[in-house]
Each structure stands twice: as structure tokens, then as C-alpha cells.
């Protein structure tokens, strides 16, 4: 019978010419059916004159006699888009109309060739409910993604990322604290090749994720790769993509060039530009350090005292992003194969910062004669990141490459030598930082990552309504990092240091699934899934530190005089789960879904290791149920869901152990740990209610998807700060609660829908309130992470998650600032207070898409409203007097307030029972640089509250102008399609509440993908790129 068949291929599209993904194609009267791919392409075996039936949920089925044709394209009519098929947990495809919860689908075309090599960053502003934050502006720096806020006090609140059915760790491996001297570390997802992505589905709520178990309480991002989802397709297709983008620093402050180094308008060889006006002084003593090193460069005792307006700008270079990718897919009626090979080279604007990544992915599938479908995929990634050290340069023993880069005294000539004749760093003033050019050359962090993914999938239907699926896979990520601090740096005692960090994480995932879809009646449909899941995570991590290089220029442990085993760690974590999922449908307009899962975790006490959690959700297509036929309202769906997700503990949290210390005076020793474990931990649970609606008006001119949710996590497994006098600084326990409540709006408006010209506006809105609801009795607040004295994130009932707490200036009962009568500065209060909330009020992204024939213009604006940032960059720009913000120098200032008692902060000084208005004058210099001690002003050495700014920011994020070459032009060429595009990224920003001339983009963050947000310690500014892209398919 097979012998009579031929391969028939084709494409299923909708009335607008867009592909209908995963449409079902059946040979009428036979069980022979296939599913089209995400682009609507299908391939099926059929005899001549067969009738093919095309169906897809939400479309009217159509039939076609194929005659002798082997290529059949068909168009389905009906309500598209709103009834799409989406991929949900465990790769299960469901029709959108049957979902009782919100799932966003992202077209990978919206992410590629946008002058942004990072998949997550290119998602910014495109998915409602997802908060994406970048960190440093250097290549490969981690991006943080979060769905519906933090659910964990200290642990990871990032969503579970699943690629081709296997969890993909997005860990950021922090070798050195990013407070003091860490790098702009990568996170795991940067290994993923965007060019290989076939689809991204974002499951936002807990109910969407119940089947994934524990980690899915943070939402799930399901990524299907092209190679991993190779399916039978028509013939062979080759796609080649190439992009080149130039990169510059996006924003430099607007510097003043009237005053040079010094203080109080007098010259000194200082860091701050508080010295005399250039007009008033001709020359200054030659830089003592430079002159000592290169007397020949300074024939006179003096050098000109003048501005070097571009001294900061010249520290940076023009970078670029160059990316090439080749995708090949092919196959026959039974088997298919896909290969993606990509290469990226990203050279950052900071010298010596770059990222090179190569990906090779291979996938194949076939159908065995016995009826089993088998597919397998394998991918290999190698990434190499080079970059400098960051962090707070004021922490002892550190040397941030950005310590002074943006704050150079205006009269420093940075083109003078950056090292002496022995290769030691040289800067115009003695020390306090390493010359950034020297840092870039010698103090570098190299991170070499490799990732291997292997997966296999088997499926088989015994009967039409009984199907077995089995998936097994392994995802191994390895990091090999070398942090080098050369002899002469201010860090590492000037003796040099090498840190080697080797990290390996293997994740093993196995899923067995039985799907039952019995026919019940015409109106009722039933789908039952039962399955088993096994997950194992194994981590090994060894960190070694070598101190004191014996000789320069060789970066091996053997070349160090003193070695330490900083870390030697192994952990393994196992979870076994069984689950069931039942969906009942009525007349294709009402659906009810319930799930139940039980997990057994290795990390919980034996008596608590088994835990069960359910979810229910429902959806109703109101327009169908009420048979509404209206020109205004095309489609209306209501959905509701409730879900509970359980979560286990990190490994080894149950028993107390001792820590072995490095020796002292040759004597080995050990200590009790600072954190007490607890043998009675219980699983923590997150419950969520979600309500939503999808509406379509005026034949899809306006489409709205609205979701409201309320998610509560309780009895969290976390470490609670204990008073040190208890003997421990912290204890692992179950305590507290976190609430995330918010809304997500996805609005599509299509004002013009012509055949040649169309205009779409797509808006997404995300608002999430992340509140700590409770801690434990008697504890007012706990510190979430120790950053630096005076500014730390805290957890406190009733307050936003991870709010910033720090020193504030004292005020009297009426709220007047209390001024130290002696200095004229503000008295610092004894107690710290809340000084900011890093969580934005809302995020809004608006994409305008204009299309005229083959030409399209895509413009994305995004807006982050609110959220606070503690900015060392801004504080230092002001404190060092380098920007135009502090240009007004000859003025005298009086800080508004009343006199206070410095011995008793908070108490005003009363004269005759009345407060006294401050009339102590301070200079501009004093206004931004105070001496420290019990009082301060607005810049350096001030109370923390003055370095915290509202981080509201507007970005012109993305502009793409693309041109699809007309088919007629390609007629005689071997191309199926050619698209050329120009893209720009981060072209403009406005942060209205930052000091004007700092031009600071509050999008940067010093803590990468970790939970600490809203703290910036001299981070590398964001980037701006312009690119040209070409996409050719054969």
C-alpha cells in the first residue's frame, strides 16, 4: 500500500497569508495523519486523487482532492491567532481556547537580527508579565528574567527554562563577589543559539506549570529548537543569516570642562574636579608618578593646566557584533534531519571585553516500521567571554576596571603612558585605582563555557486513543574561569593573584507520559495524561586561588607563591514525581482542566519528602457558548485558574556540619558554621489565582488579552537572620510569606490592514506588586544580602521585596532636615531606613509595525516606570564634580533645614524653645563632597538616601527596517527568499529623574541575574548598536 503513495508537501496558511502552525492534515478515510510544523509546512504520504482534510482548531476544516499534484498549498478560513496552538508543560500542545491560564508565544523572528545577541535582552518589551533586566554593558553579561516577581527570599526566582524537553540551567556562576571585585559574569542562557530557536512559549502562571513541579513556580519558558524538533518537511531547506552591528557606549555623561582637579577651587593632585577654573591657572606641577617613570616626557617641572574634554570617551572603542548562522533541514517521508551551525563574535566597547560563541546543533527523527517515532538531538556550544573586573572600588583589596573611568579629573591626559617601564600601572595621581587602560590589558576574567545537550524522544500510539511518550535527556554545562590580577594592581596587595574556577552542572531529566483521548460523546471530549518524572542535578565546583605571582605574565597556579583551595564542592539533588492531568471539553467552548502531582525530593527530611499539589483551571468561549454573532465582538474568552506548587530545599540543608579552615601558623582548624541548619524542614508552597480574558473586536482589528493574578508563597525555605548573640548569623527554616499580585495586558491594534500596506501596534503592559507579607514573629526585618555598609536589600513585612535600606539624614518631627551647625551639613540619623524600592511600578512596551509590500519598519519603545536605583556612578559623577550638573562653582549654598544636635541625631537644637533655621553656608564642593563622619551633604560621603534615584526610563529600544526581495527578482536566482534589514538598538533613552547631565541609563545593575536589584556599583554603561542583516533561504 505504501508503494502507491507519493510524498505530498505543502503549506497551510490563513486568509492573511500567515502560516497556520501545527495544522492537522489527514488523508480522508484513512488513519494517515500528520501535523504541520510551526510554519505550516507539512509532508504526507498519499496516493493520487486522494482527498486531504486540513483542520486546525479555530479554523473551518477544508478538503481538497490533490489529483496528481505533489505540492498542495491551502488556505484555511476562520478566527486565527486567537485560537492558536500553544506548547504547554512537557511539550504538550493545546489549543489556546482550552487553556485556563495565560501563555505567551513569541515568534523567534521578532528576536533575531535586531542587533542584540542575547536572547533574553531581545525579549525586552515584547512579552507581558515578564521582567527582563540587563546588567553590565559588556559582552555576555548576565540578563535577569523574572515572571511575576520573586517567590523566594534568597533562592533563585528565575523561571525554569526548558529546551527541547530538558531543563536548561540559567545559573550565574559568581566566582568573586560582585560587590568587591567580580566580573560581568554570564548566565547560562547566553549559551543558547537564538538562530536555532523554533518557538518560545512563556507559561507565566503556576497552573501552567504544575506539571513541571517545584521549579516551575517561577514560571516556565519552553523553547523548541529547530534542530531538536526536526520533523518531516518538504525537501531540503537552507537558511543563511548574517548580521553585523557596530557598537558604541550608549551614553556618556556631559562633562564640564571648566574646572580641573583639586578642592575648594584650589589645585591639588586629587580625584575630584573641584579645583580652580582652567582660565585662572596656566600650569600645574607635572604628575609626580608619571614624571618619575618618564622624566623624558616632562622636560619642564610643570604641565599645562587644561581640560581634556574627551579623556573619558577615548577610553572606549567602537565594538561590533558579528553573527553568522546556517540552518539546514531536510528529509523524506519517514525521516528528517536538521542542523544549525552558528558563530557569534561580539567585541565590546570596553577594551578587552568580548564574547565569542559557536554553536552546533543536530537533530533527527524517524518513524520506525513498528510505528514508533524516534527523535534525537544533540548540541554543543562553546563560548568564551573576556572581560574586566567590576564592583565597588572602595572595598579594600579590590580594583574595579571602572573605578575612575567615568570620573576622570577633567585635566587628566589619559594618553600619557599607562604603565611604567617595569609594566606597573601609572595614573596621574598616585593610587586609589588602576589606570583603566592598564586594567584592560592585564586584569582580566576569562570564562570558557561548554554545554552539551543530548536528548531522545520516543512516542507510540497503541490505539488511536492511547499514546506513550518517553523523553530522556542530559544537559551539561561546564565553566572554566580564570581571573587574573597582575602584579602591580592595587588589588591583591600588589602581588598578583589568580583564581581558577571550575564548575560543572549536569541535569538529567526523564519523563514518561501516557496520553488517553477516548471518544466519549459528540459534545464531550476527554484527555487524560498520567506520567512519571525524574530529575537529577549534580554540581561539582572547585575554586583555587593562587596569590603572589612569582614572575609577571604567566598566569598559572604554579607561578604563584601561595595557594588556597577556596572551594571544593559536590552536590546532588534528586526529585521523583508522578502526575496526572485531566481535561474535559464541552462542545469546544467550555473546558475544565485539573492536574495533580506528587513529588519525592532527596533534600527534605524523610518524613516530609513527599508532597502533593493540585491545580484546576477552566475556560469558556463566551461568543461560542452564547452564539454571539457580532461585527463588533468577534471572540470572547474567559479563563480562571487556581494552582498550588510545592518546592523543596537546597541539598544538605538538614544537618549541621563543621567547616574546615585554611591553616593558621601551620595548625589546621575547623569551625562551627555561621548558618544553622534545620532537620525539620517542610516543603514550601506557592498558590496562585489567575483570572483572564481574551477579546477580539471588529474582525481582529483590536485584540486584548488581560490577566490578573495573585500569587502567594508561604512557609518559605530560607535562611533567617538570627542575632549573632544566638551563636549563628542565620538559620535555615520555614518561615514567612511573599505575595505577587499584578496584571498583564497584551493589546494588538491593527489600524490599517491593506493588502499592500498595514500598520500594527502591539502594546504590552506588566505590573507586579511584590510584597513580603510576613517573616516570623519577633523579627522586624532581615537583610536579603550583604552588599556594603549603608546600602543593603531587606525583607520586611508589608514592604516591597528586597527594598533598599540605608542611612538617611536626620529630620525633626516636622520633617525638616537637621543640620550640623558646625559644618552646615545634614546630620546622619542613627537608624537606617527604607531608601528605595527597586521594583518598577509598571513596564510598558509598544511595538509599531508598518509594512508596505516587502518593506517593513518595526519600532519598539519601552518604558519602565518607577523603581529605585542606588547609583555609585551618579553619586560619584556628582561627588567628583565632573559633570555639568555641578558646574556652578562660585555659588554658596545653604541646605534647607533647621539646626540639630549632632550628639543626638533627630533632636533639633532649640533656642528659646524654637528651632533655628540653618544659615551655615557651604560651597558647591561641600555640597557634593562631604568629609564623612556624623554629617554629610548630597554626593560622596553623604547619607545613602541621596544616592538613590527614581529609575523611570524610556527607551527607543529597537528599530528595524527590513526589505523582502520580491519573488520576481529572485526568479532566476537559487534563492527562495532574501531579506535585508537595518537594525538599531538602544538608540535613545530618557531617565527624567536622574541628574540631567549624568545621562545615566538606570537599566544597568551590578548583580547580574541574582536577586539583588537596584544597586549599581560603577557598572559599565549600556550599549548602542546599528546593524545590517541579511537572511537568505535556498
Amino acid at each position: 500500500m505504501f508503494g502507491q503513495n507519493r510524498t505530498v508537501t505543502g503549506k497551510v496558511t490563513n486568509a492573511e497569508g500567515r502560516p497556520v502552525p501545527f495544522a492537522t492534515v489527514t488523508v480522508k478515510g484513512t488513519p494517515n495523519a500528520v501535523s504541520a510544523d510551526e510554519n505550516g509546512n507539512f509532508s504526507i504520504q498519499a496516493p493520487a486523487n486522494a482527498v486531504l482534510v486540513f483542520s486546525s482548531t479555530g479554523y473551518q476544516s477544508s478538503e481538497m482532492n490533490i489529483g496528481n499534484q505533489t505540492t498542495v498549498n491551502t488556505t484555511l478560513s476562520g478566527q486565527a491567532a486567537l485560537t492558536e496552538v500553544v506548547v504547554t508543560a512537557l511539550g504538550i500542545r493545546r489549543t489556546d481556547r482550552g487553556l485556563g491560564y495565560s501563555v505567551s508565544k513569541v515568534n523567534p523572528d521578532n528576536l533575531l537580527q535586531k542587533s542584540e545577541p542575547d536572547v533574553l535582552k531581545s525579549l525586552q518589551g515584547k512579552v507581558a508579565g515578564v521582567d527582563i533586566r540587563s546588567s553590565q554593558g559588556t559582552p555576555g553579561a548576565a540578563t535577569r528574567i523574572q515572571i511575576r516577581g520573586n517567590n523566594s527570599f534568597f533562592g533563585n526566582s528565575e523561571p525554569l527554562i526548558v529546551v527541547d524537553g530538558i531543563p536548561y540551567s540559567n545559573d550565574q556562576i559568581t566566582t568573586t563577589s560582585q560587590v568587591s571585585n567580580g566580573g560581568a559574569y554570564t548566565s547560562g542562557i547566553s549559551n543558547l543559539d537564538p538562530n536555532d530557536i523554533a518557538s518560545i512559549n512563556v507559561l507565566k502562571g503556576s497552573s501552567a506549570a504544575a506539571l513541571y513541579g517545584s521549579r516551575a513556580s517561577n514560571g516556565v519558558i519552553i523553547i523548541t529548537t529547530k534542530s531538536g524538533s526536526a520533523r518531516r518537511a518538504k525537501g531540503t531547506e537552507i537558511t543563511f543569516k548574517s548580521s553585523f552591528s557596530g557598537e558604541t557606549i550608549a551614553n556618556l555623561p556631559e562633562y564640564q570642562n571648566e574646572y580641573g582637579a583639586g578642592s575648594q577651587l584650589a589645585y591639588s593632585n586629587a580625584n575630584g574636579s573641584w579645583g580652580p577654573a582652567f582660565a585662572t591657572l596656566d600650569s600645574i606641577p607635572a604628575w609626580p608618578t608619571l614624571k618619575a617613570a618618564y622624566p623624558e616626557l616632562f622636560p619642564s617641572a610643570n604641565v599645562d593646566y587644561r581640560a581634556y574634554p574627551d579623556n573619558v570617551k577615548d577610553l572606549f572603542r567602537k565594538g561590533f557584533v558579528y553573527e553568522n548562522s546556517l540552518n539546514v533541514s531536510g528529509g523524506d517521508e519517514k525521516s528528517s534531519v536538521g542542523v544549525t551551525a552558528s558563530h557569534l563574535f561580539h567585541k565590546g566597547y570596553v577594551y578587552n571585553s568580548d564574547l565569542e560563541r559557536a554553536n552546533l546543533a543536530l537533530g533527527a527523527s524517524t518513524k520506525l516500521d513498528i510505528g514508533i517515532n524516534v527523535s534525537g538531538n544533540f548540541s554543543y556550544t562553546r563560548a568564551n567571554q573576556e572581560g574586566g573586573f567590576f564592583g565597588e572600588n572602595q572595598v579594600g583589596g579590590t580594583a574595579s576596571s571602572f573605578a575612575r573611568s567615568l570620573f576622570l579629573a577633567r585635566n587628566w591626559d589619559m594618553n600619557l603612558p599607562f604603565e611604567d617601564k617595569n609594566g606597573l600601572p601609572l595614573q596621574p595621581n598616585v593610587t586609589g585605582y588602576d589606570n583603566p587602560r592598564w586594567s584592560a590589558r592585564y586584569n582580566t576574567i576569562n570564562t570558557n563555557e561548554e554545554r552539551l545537550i543530548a536528548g531522545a524522544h520516543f512516542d507510540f500510539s497503541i490505539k488511536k486513543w492511547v499514546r506513550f511518550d518517553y523523553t530522556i535527556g542530559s544537559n551539561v554545562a561546564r565553566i572554566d574561569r580564570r581571573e587574573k590580577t597582575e602584579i602591580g594592581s592595587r588589588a591583591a596587595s600588589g602581588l598578583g593573584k589568580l583564581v581558577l574556577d571550575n564548575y560543572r552542572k549536569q541535569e538529567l531529566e526523564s519523563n514518561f507520559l501516557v496520553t488517553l483521548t477516548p471518544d466519549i460523546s459528540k459534545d464531550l471530549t476527554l484527555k487524560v495524561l498520567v506520567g512519571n518524572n525524574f530529575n537529577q542535578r549534580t554540581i561539582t565546583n572547585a575554586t583555587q586561588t593562587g596569590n603572589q605571582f612569582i614572575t609577571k605574565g604567566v598566569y598559572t597556579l604554579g607561578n604563584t607563591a601561595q595557594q588556597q583551595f577556596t572551594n571544593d564542592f559536590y552536590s546532588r539533588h534528586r526529585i521523583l514525581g508522578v502526575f496526572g492531568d485531566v481535561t474535559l471539553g464541552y462542545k469546544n467552548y467550555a473546558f475544565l482542566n485539573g492536574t495533580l502531582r506528587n513529588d519525592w525530593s532527596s533534600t527534605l527530611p524523610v518524613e516530609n519528602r513527599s508532597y502533593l499539589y493540585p491545580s484546576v483551571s477552566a475556560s469558556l468561549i463566551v461568543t461560542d457558548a452564547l452564539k454571539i454573532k457580532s461585527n463588533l465582538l468577534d471572540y470572547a474568552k474567559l479563563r480562571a485558574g487556581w494552582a498550588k506548587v510545592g518546592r523543596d530545599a537546597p541539598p544538605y540543608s538538614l544537618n549541621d556540619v563543621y567547616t574546615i579552615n585554611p591553616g593558621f601558623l601551620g595548625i589546621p582548624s575547623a569551625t562551627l558554621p555561621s548558618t544553622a541548619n534545620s532537620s525539620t524542614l517542610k516543603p514550601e508552597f506557592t498558590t496562585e489565582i489567575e483570572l483572564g480574558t481574551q477579546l477580539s473586536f471588529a474582525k481582529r482589528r483590536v485584540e486584548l488579552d488581560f490577566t490578573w493574578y495573585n500569587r502567594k508563597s508561604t512557609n518559605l525555605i530560607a535562611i533567617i537572620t538570627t542575632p549573632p548573640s544566638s551563636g549563628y548569623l542565620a538559620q535555615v527554616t520555614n518561615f514567612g510569606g511573599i505575595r505577587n499580585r499584578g496584571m498583564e495586558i497584551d493589546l494588538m491594534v491593527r489600524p490599517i490592514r491593506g493588502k499592500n500596506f498595514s500598520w500594527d501596534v502591539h502594546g504590552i503592559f506588566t505590573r507586579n506588586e511584590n510584597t513580603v507579607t510576613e517573616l516570623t514573629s519577633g523579627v522586624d526585618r532581615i537583610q536579603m544580602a550583604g552588599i556594603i555598609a549603608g546600602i543593603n536589600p531587606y525583607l520586611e513585612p508589608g514592604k516591597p521585596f528586597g527594598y533598599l535600606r540605608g542611612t538617611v539624614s536626620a529630620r525633626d518631627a516636622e520633617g525638616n532636615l537637621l543640620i550640623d551647625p558646625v559644618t552646615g551639613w545634614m546630620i546622619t540619623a542613627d537608624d537606617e531606613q527604607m531608601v528605595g524600592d527597586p521594583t518598577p511600578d509598571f513596564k510598558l512596551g509598544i511595538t509599531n509595525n508598518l509594512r508596505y509590500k516587502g518593506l517593513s519598519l518595526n519600532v519598539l519603545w519601552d518604558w519602565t516606570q518607577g523603581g529605585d536605583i542606588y547609583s555609585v556612578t551618579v553619586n560619584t559623577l556628582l561627588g567628583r564634580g565632573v559633570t555639568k550638573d555641578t558646574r556652578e562653582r562660585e555659588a554658596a549654598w545653604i541646605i534647607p533645614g533647621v539646626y540639630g544636635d549632632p550628639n543626638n541625631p533627630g533632636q533639633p537644637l532649640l533656642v528659646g524653645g524654637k528651632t533655628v533655621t540653618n544659615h551655615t553656608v557651604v560651597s558647591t564642593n561641600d555640597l557634593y563632597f562631604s568629609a564623612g563622619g556624623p554629617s554629610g551633604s548630597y554626593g560622596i560621603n553623604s547619607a545613602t538616601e541621596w544616592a538613590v534615584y527614581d529609575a523611570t526610563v524610556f527607551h527607543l529600544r529597537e528599530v528595524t527596517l527590513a526589505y523582502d526581495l520580491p519573488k520576481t527578482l529572485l526568479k532566476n536566482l537559487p534563492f527562495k527568499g532574501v531579506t535585508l534589514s537595518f537594525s538599531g538598538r538602544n538608540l535613545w533613552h530618557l531617565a527624567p529623574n536622574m541628574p540631567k547631565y549624568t545621562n545615566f541609563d538606570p537599566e544597568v545593575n551590578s548583580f547580574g541575574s541574582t536577586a539583588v536589584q537596584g544597586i549599581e556599583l560603577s557598572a559599565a554603561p549600556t550599549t548602542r548598536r546599528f546593524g545590517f542583516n541579511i537572511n537568505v533561504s535556498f
Partner: protein
Amino acid sequence: MLHKIKFIIPFVALLAMSCKKFLDINTDPNNPVAVEVSKLLPTTQRTLGDALSMDEQNGGLSEILAVYTHQMSTREEADKYGITGVDVNIQTAWSKLFSSSANPGTGFPVYGVLQNLEDIIAKSTAAGNFRYAGIAKILKAYTYSVAVDVFGDLPYTEANKLKEGILYPKFDDDAAIYESLFALINAGIADLSNPAVNPQVPGADDLIYGGNVTRWVKAANTLKLKMYTQIRKVKNVSAEVNALISGGNLISQTSESFLLPYGPNGATDDRNPGFYTYFATQRSNHVSPWFYEILKGYNTRIFTGNPDPRIKYYIYNQVNATQNPREGNQTEYRDGAFVSIYFGSVGPDRDRSQQNTISLLGIYPVGGKYDDGSATVANANSGTGAAPYRFITYADRLYLEAELISTGVITGDAKTKLTQAMAESFKQVDYVIANYVRPAQNVPALVGLAAVATYTSNVLAEYDAASAEKKLEIIMTQKWLSSVGSAVDQYTDIRRTGYPLVFDPSNPSMAPGGRVQPPINGDPVNPGNQKSVPVQVSRTFALALPWFQTELESNPNAPAQKNPSIYKVFWMP
């Protein structure tokens, strides 16, 4: 076709099989669940030294207190008595004393004194290892005594009992704690004297005395002497101190001093935390001009015209007397080679970078460099850093006795004690350098120098001529000079006795018109013209240090933060 998929079934069965064993993998393979007490003892001793030391990098109590006692000056919070409960030195010291804490910066754990001591006491008592128990009790008593001296009320009876269910210890009255410490010391002495055979005895793991029981008993008795002396104003302690002195079991030679040795930067970095300033990325520890001027004989009230020969052992100058500042900046205070800043300064030159120009603490207090006049920039190789942190020295014991005689608590000849104490102070410098610091450079011995004899006889002549009150001032000031680098008892002494007098920017006789004048010819760049410096102090002298703010905020049983200007430790009348 069912048989064709049979191969899946065993696979699934394998996964589900023996679920329990499969999940029983949660035993930490990286860390031990039990260790011997000999591994815990060195931890507690080192951490005690670190917590009290002048640790500019990670924080330690002497980092603050040396400023409060005017041996050091700084631009940091300790200037103008500005320390609050969030200060990193308070944080580090408090956390290290009570519990193990992660050491900021290095990522290494740093280890709790009291929590580990309690573990030693419990385990060694149970196992009959009485020497360990005795040493641990004496260390615990010393730790609490200095903590009370500095902070006042503290958690004591309920402290270090988290595993017994006490998360939030109450704060005990400081006087009551002191009282029970005497009993604790006696219990420690009793343990040390217990004739039972100990299965395990301390040896090299006892970094302080190498397991020498006799010396531990002497240290314990000397600690009692010190504590009784400290409370003499609120209690008649004559009987107790007479008994201790007549008992003859006190620290009675240089080698018996109660101190924590540090070592060089060898296989591990064992240096005195105070040496950090030699390679600090930003040196914030300046030597106080007040201290310097007393050493030089510039002070017009005391030891006037009598230069102290220890100055080259105490202070290292990075420049010579005629050199320009290496940074090219105007200095605030300069006296030839000596460069520093004033306490309370608001002068224009205070904040100028002088990283490689300022004077540093020298070879004796921190294991730095003996000032041989080479005037080279200090770096990590300038010294070994192996100076010990001194808890109670033999010299301290002699000064305590001189004070007790001078104040009439006991009878005796105070001048003889002062003479002995001064001689021991000089000897101690030589001893520490030769036995601990072991410098590469050639350092002459002090003992036997003519300058030492001259200095001593001048001080004694001044003592002879002084009033009774002034005699006490001379004793306490000599003690202060002798104890450079260990500022905790200095701070207690100043608060108890009022001596030595310290610089007060608001005192018109010390800073007339709010200005203080460095030596007019001290600056080679501006000979004859060194500017006077405006000084201020907004807060008055702190009578105690604030409690660690996190302790207060995380402990519902903690009191409200104290006002350090008025809070009195119980031994202050």
C-alpha cells in the same frame, strides 16, 4: 505491538524502584559532622585576636578604638567619634565574637569565638578533657570581659543557645556579667588544675601557650587582677587584688604575656590584620599627631622635651624630612618625615591623597617596618606582619599594680612599679621583634640604649616632681604608650581614669579658636609657614561603643540603641 515497547517498562520500573534508597543522598559529602576540640581551639584564639585587632580590611575593635584613644587618626567614621551601630568594625567584631561569620572581601569563613568555645567546653567536659575546658572558660571570660568593657550590657546567660531553642537572647546587666566572670575564671583554673588524666591535652593547637597549664593559670589570675582594677571605682577590691598579688601566680615575665601570635605571609596568610595598611589599596590609618607629639616630647603637658626612643619602632615614615609629598599634594600635618592628619580636622588638606606619603604604624605594633630612614614607599614586602596581638602583657600587669598603688587600693611603691613597667615595656618591644616579627632588616635592640636610660630617668624625674594626680596620669600615659596596637584596654583606661588626656578639638587650650598649629617649620615645602588647621568635633567623647545594629534589629529582646555619649559601663562611677 505491545510487546515491542516492553523495553520501556523495565526502564521506568528501574526509576521507580527502591525510591527510598534512591533519595537518601542528602548527606553533605563536603563537610564533617564532628571534629576534635583540638581543631576548634585555634579557631577561637585567632578569631579573638582578629576581632580585637586593628583590622582595616575586615574590621576589628582597635580600628575604631585606636582613634578614640588618639593613637591613630582617620578620615573614616571613627573620626569625631562618629561610629554608629552599622559600622563595619562593630559588625565584624560583634559577629566574630559571638558567632561564625563570613569574612567580607575574602570569601573565607571567619570563625566564632564564643560559639566554638561553648562547643569546646561541652565536648571536652563530657570527654574529661579538662585542660581544654579550662582554657576555653578562661578565653570565654576574657572575651566577655572586654566585650562588656566596650559595649556594657550584653547577652550572656542566654547567648549561644540557638540549638537549645533560644533564638533571641536577653541582654544581661553588665555588672552581673562581670561578677559571674570571676566565677567562670575560677572554674577554668579549677579545670586546669584537675589532676584527672585527660584523654587529650592541648599542644601546638593552643596557639597562645602551647598547652602550658601554668601559664594559663597565670593569665587567668592576671585577667582577674585587670578586671578588679577596672571595677575599683565601684567596688572595694583591695582584698581580692592583694590576694592575687600575694598568691604569686601572675604573669611575671615577658615570655608569659597573654597574646596571640601572628605569622608571616607564607603557605597561608597569617599576618597581623594591622599590617594590612602596608598594602592597603587606600590607606586610611594615619598615626595621630597627638600620639606622635607625645612620643617626640612636643606635648607641653607631659614628657615635654623627652623624646621616646621607641618612635622608630612604633612609626614608619614613607618619606624623609626634606622630600616632597609623593602625590604632589599639600600635607595637613607634617613634621619633617612624619606626615599625618588631625582628629576632627576640617582643613582643606585633610582629604588630599597622601597614600605614599603618610606615616604608618611600625614594626612593633603591626609587624611593619622599623624606621631606618630609608624613606621608601611601604608595600606588602616592607615587613613580615608577624607581630602578635597583645591581650595582657607582663608590662600591663606591672602598670596595673602601679595604678593600684597610686590610687591607694594596695600599698607599695608606685615608682618602683612604674620603673619596672617601663623597663618591661622596652624589653617587650625587643622580645616581640626578635621572637615573633623576625624581620629581614637589621633592628637594633632598645634595651641597653643610652636613649632609653635617659628617657626613663627623665620620666621618673617628672614623676617625682608630680602631684599625686599627675603621677597617675604619668603611669596611665606610659601604659598607653606601651600598649600601642592593642587599643581595647587603652579605651577602658581612659574612661576609667581620665588618662591619658586626649586631644579635644573643642578644648581652647588644645585648639585655640578651633585651630591647631602643626610645627611651623615641619613642612619642607613651606618652611616657616605650615598652616594651622581648623578642627571640630560635633559629638562628645564616646563612653561606650554602640551595639551592632543588626543584633538589635534581629533580636526582639534587645534594648534600644544606646547614646554612646552618655551610656556608662557599670565600672564608671
